[in-house]
């Protein structure tokens, strides 16, 4: 369990983190969301003891990170934005070094490393130089490094950034499997990624907490307004006017158009009992405008912010 209380980090005149407070419960995955530069990494660096806070406290399982750093750090495994890897070492040498740093005793080491290596699936590269590994493997070695010493809390700073889609899915699976026995804080600026793994999210913006919510409540908040993307073969102006006239449609804006097709972005109000999608479908059918594409648009993080801060 981590209790973060009124954290402030000042750099000169600028407050990178400005009064952040939240709690991470045991065996919970907490998503830590925010746009680039919101203070995610700074906050994580403070929680792990890499940086000090200007004011405020961080308590890790009851140990203050500044007053009892060694006890607190034993509870935390940290994967920073850039995994702290030595390219000149093999994976085996590196993990052995991390065991030394974290004070894992010789007799426990072999068993623990075996477990970690099979969990993050790096056994096939175990004796290769880290410098020669792909980005995905490096990331996994970074996660393995965080797990050394059996910390009860894992802090992962953008663990999937720069990975290809297959690797992203692998890492997400890994995080889900780790969630059974660890508290995890995972940061990202991609909403869907957090949605998939996290129980609860903390959204920060400009160094402040903008919202703390469970995933389902967050989507409820967002579902007040949702967007559809429609591409059809037909005249733009006429289509626009007819769609705007449909009940439940808040607004419709053209996105793309050429001689053969038109694309519209449609905002709809969801509290309408009638499903707007049905009426759009029948409208298109009646006018004999073939639908080429029709899907809902996921809200971007920016919209989430606008939405949350507007309330």
């Amino acid at each position: 369990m981590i209790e973060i209380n009124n954290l402030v980090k000042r750099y000169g005149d600028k407050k990178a983190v400005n009064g952040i407070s939240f709690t991470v419960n045991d065996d919970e995955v907490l998503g830590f969301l925010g746009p680039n530069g919101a203070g995610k990494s700074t906050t994580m660096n403070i929680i792990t003891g890499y940086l000090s806070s200007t004011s405020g406290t961080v308590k890790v399982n009851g140990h203050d990170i500044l007053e009892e750093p060694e006890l607190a750090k034993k509870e935390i495994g940290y994967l920073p934005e850039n995994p702290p890897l030595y390219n000149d070492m093999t994976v085996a040498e590196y993990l052995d070094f991390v065991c030394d740093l974290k004070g894992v005793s010789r007799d426990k080491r072999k068993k623990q490393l075996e477990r970690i290596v099979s969990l993050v699936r790096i056994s096939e590269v175990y004796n290769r130089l880290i410098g020669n590994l792909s980005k995905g493997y490096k990331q996994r070695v970074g996660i393995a490094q965080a797990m050394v010493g059996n910390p009860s809390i894992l802090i992962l700073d953008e663990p999937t950034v720069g990975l290809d889609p297959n690797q992203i899915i692998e890492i997400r699976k890994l995080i889900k499997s780790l969630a059974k026995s660890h508290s995890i804080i995972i940061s990202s600026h991609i909403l869907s990624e957090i949605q998939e793994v996290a129980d609860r999210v903390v959204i920060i913006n400009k160094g402040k907490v903008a919202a703390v919510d469970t995933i389902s409540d967050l989507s409820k908040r967002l579902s007040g307004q949702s967007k559809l993307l429609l591409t059809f073969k037909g005249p733009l102006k006429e289509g626009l006017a007819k769609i705007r006239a449909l009940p439940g449609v808040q607004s419709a804006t053209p996105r793309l158009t050429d001689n053969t097709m038109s694309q519209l972005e449609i905002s709809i109000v969801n509290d309408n009992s009638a499903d707007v999608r049905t009426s759009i479908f029948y409208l298109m059918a009646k006018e004999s405008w073939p639908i080429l594409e029709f899907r809902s648009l996921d809200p971007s993080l920016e919209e989430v912010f606008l939405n949350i801060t507007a309330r």
Partner: protein
Amino acid sequence: MYAIFKREFLSYFRSPVGYVAISIFSFLAGFIFYSQFAGGSVNIGSEVISLRSFFVIIVPIITMGLLAEDKKRGTEILYYTTPVSLFSVVAGKVLAAFALYAVMFLNVVIHIIVTLACGGVFGVGAVGTIIVFFFMAFMFISMGLFASAITDNQIVSAIVAFIFILITQLLSVIGDYTGTAVTSVASAIGVNSESASAVGTAIRSAISWLDPFAKTQDFRLGVFSVSALFFLLCIGILFLYMTYRVLEKKRWSQA
């Protein structure tokens, strides 16, 4: 501490750095020993004293990456976020560089064995110079480590270390020049010649008091001075302490 030491020491041999340093040292030591040997009179003490002039090249090579490289790679985060203390980081790094120096010194050990086998002399003066050699190595490595802590660029770190060591090696010359300069400036602005030269002499002796080479020059004669060794040790520890503070400051920085 042992973890850091082991990693750093082995990393010298994972890159060319360790081999380059050892090769340079072996070449120099071998060359000096060979010229003595060919000349028919071997003096291990003077070989070791000659080798001291090359600290200025070898120390920057082996210390430049110690902390600068960690900063560049982002691996320094491991030192701050694991239960290891910054003190043991500094200690482990300095010991690793020192151990590399010890490995290089095996050359001289071989020369001693050859000398003894050929009926040469290995006297108490030579032992004295070897002791001084290691204390100086510690002091210069500490300076190099400090130079490595203040930047994330290995080249900058090497240049700063080079300058530190060069200044130390030239302290007596610097003292002479500064003394003379101060005397002439003082007389030029109208101070009477007696006090002008007194000020100059005071400054010269103050600067040369710091000269570790002058302090330890009697060791070669077998005259050991604990206070001189203590002086070298203190300078080394001072630089280690400053290194420690630089690492700690990183965490508290608000700029």
